[in-house]
């Protein structure tokens, strides 16, 4: 079979990179980067994941079809995350009741449709 055999050296190199990534991500967690903390953490995790997919899972050596399948899985996950967040992040918080102006009431008159 025309299968690409990845060498153990490459596997160990990837392992070393993953260990380094783990160490960096733990260290970075103790540094105050404000809103960037989550970006850094997820960024490192994404790099680690990419290494696992490309080398441990032989993604780099797979057919175009397999690569398309992998990409579409993540693309669909992105659809779910992005569009749902599109709702949550563009909501305006409800003003509390005390801040609302009093609602005008309809005057009830004889012959009218009545108050709602």
């Amino acid at each position, binding site marked *: 079979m025309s299968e690409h055999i990845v060498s153990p050296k490459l596997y160990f190199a990837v392992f070393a990179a993953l260990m380094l990534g783990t160490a960096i991500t733990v260290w970075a967690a103790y540094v105050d980067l404000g809103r960037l903390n989550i970006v850094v953490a997820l960024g490192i995790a994404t790099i680690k994941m990419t290494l696992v997919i490309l080398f441990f899972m032989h993604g780099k050596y797979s057919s175009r079809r397999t690569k398309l399948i992998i990409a579409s899985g993540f693309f669909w996950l992105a*659809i*779910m995350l992005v*569009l749902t967040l*599109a*709702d949550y992040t*563009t909501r305006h918080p409800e003003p509390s009741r005390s801040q609302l102006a009093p609602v005008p009431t309809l005057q009830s008159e004889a012959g009218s449709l009545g108050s709602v």
Partner: protein
Amino acid sequence: MSSTQPPLSPQPQVENQLPREHYLNATYGIRSWLLTTDHKRIALLYLISVTFFFFIGGIFASLIRIHLLTPGGYLVTPETYNKLFTMHGVAMIFFFLIPSIPAVLGNFLIPIMIGAKDLAFPKINLLSWYIYLVGGAFVLYSFATGGLDTGWTFYTPLSSIYSNSAVTPAVIGIFINGFSSILTGLNFIITVHTMRAPGMTWFRLPLFVWAHYATSLIFILGTPVIAITLLLAGLERMFHMGFFNPVYGGDPILFQHLFWFYSHPAVYIMILPAMGVISEIIPTFARKPIFGYDFIAASSIGIAVIGFIVWAHHMFVTGQATYAALAFSFLSYLVAIPSAVKVFNWTATLYKGSISFDTPMLYGLGFIGLFTIGGLTGLFLACLGLDIHLHDTYFVVAHFHYIMVGGAIMGYLGGIHFWWPKITGRLYPEYLARIAAITLFVGFNLTFFPQFILGYLGMPRRYHDYPPEYQVLNVMSTAGASILALGYLLPMIYLTWSMRYGKVAGKNPWPATGLEWTTDSPPLTENFHETPVVDWEPYDFLHRPELGLLGATSKKPVPAHGDD
């Protein structure tokens, strides 16, 4: 062997006799059926199971319609009414509509249509059926031990905290059933990629196969999300975890986002296979190649993809952000375009065709009309302003029944009739079948058209009671439902009858193009006597005079269209 025609089998089927050996008589005994890995037998196992759940859902529907004959609601209590519409929805959607065409017709036909002996994973196919049964058992248990009153939509926190009905077994059952869908979709995708016969390129595939490939994409990408959503709702109910509970800071709208992320594409799971059936029926009974093959194939994929980015149109009145609502509304208009492409292409196929009104064609034509109405009314609902008025009214109920019954079920019945000769080797009684199709069409419209009006006038859905001024329309609807029921019962009777007493069909009674019509009726267990080699284009009525189109000439060589 001539390369200008599909190969004939070495033992051509004698026209007035069933073939000596075929998949139904290859082996005998209950074990040979319950442990079969033959995709055709599994399709029949599914046929029996989905029909059973159709009955269950139909019983609930009948009770609903009878209850709604009078305002005041005298048949059942309000709590029971809630259970009736919930269980009707759960049974029909998860256990009938979603599996129906893929698991029955898809399972039976896809390997034959692509020239293979079976699906890629026959044992997983059988496993899918058993998983379906286990899921169904849990749901039936739920129905029997207190029922379900949350709506098939299981909105939290009613379903996860406050409902006193048997929610937990039901969500377990639907969760399990999801794996049946996932495995079927996985099987179809791999099969279409790797099991095609020599010469069967992607653009020679029947559109039925394209439709099922697109449906399988939705199975794979959408079903896992409903699985996790119901799992979370179930965990909340069992262990008081707070995901969707406002008391803990959880958000019920999050449930709705997650739920509809699957459940909207699910409606495309229900309609795409039916569209695939129609794409097979129309060219056959117009005796013309289908118009715009490439566009119909692409539109199936387009519907599957765009269908994933419109879900929050079910949530316009929940308080979601206006910007998000605008985006979802716009995208919902976009998803109508590929559907419209199909309707235009089917119509163009009919134009100047040599049309006959056999039963499958009656269902096909009915589909085109009713699906168009259902689809257009969907656009009314996609309009933000109109939806404020129409949301949660009978307008919505009518809209989705036009698509799911007028569309999907007519597609299902049309397909069952169209391929019945291939599945059983026998013909159903044609005139009785036409009468049944017309009965069904009339009954359907009488049931559901008044509901558009009711909804527009403001009658809410999922209400056990209504003001007296709505009674006339409700009575019309119930009357229609009884005629519709007759339309369903007739095929069940004569199709069963025909299995024993129907005329022997022969290989290609219509006649139609497609590899399935070149093999015996019923087919061998391995489908073909020898592996077909394909070098002709699909729906090639113009170049195959033996199929009966006046003016057809013998095949000219046609360059290969495309490759995987």
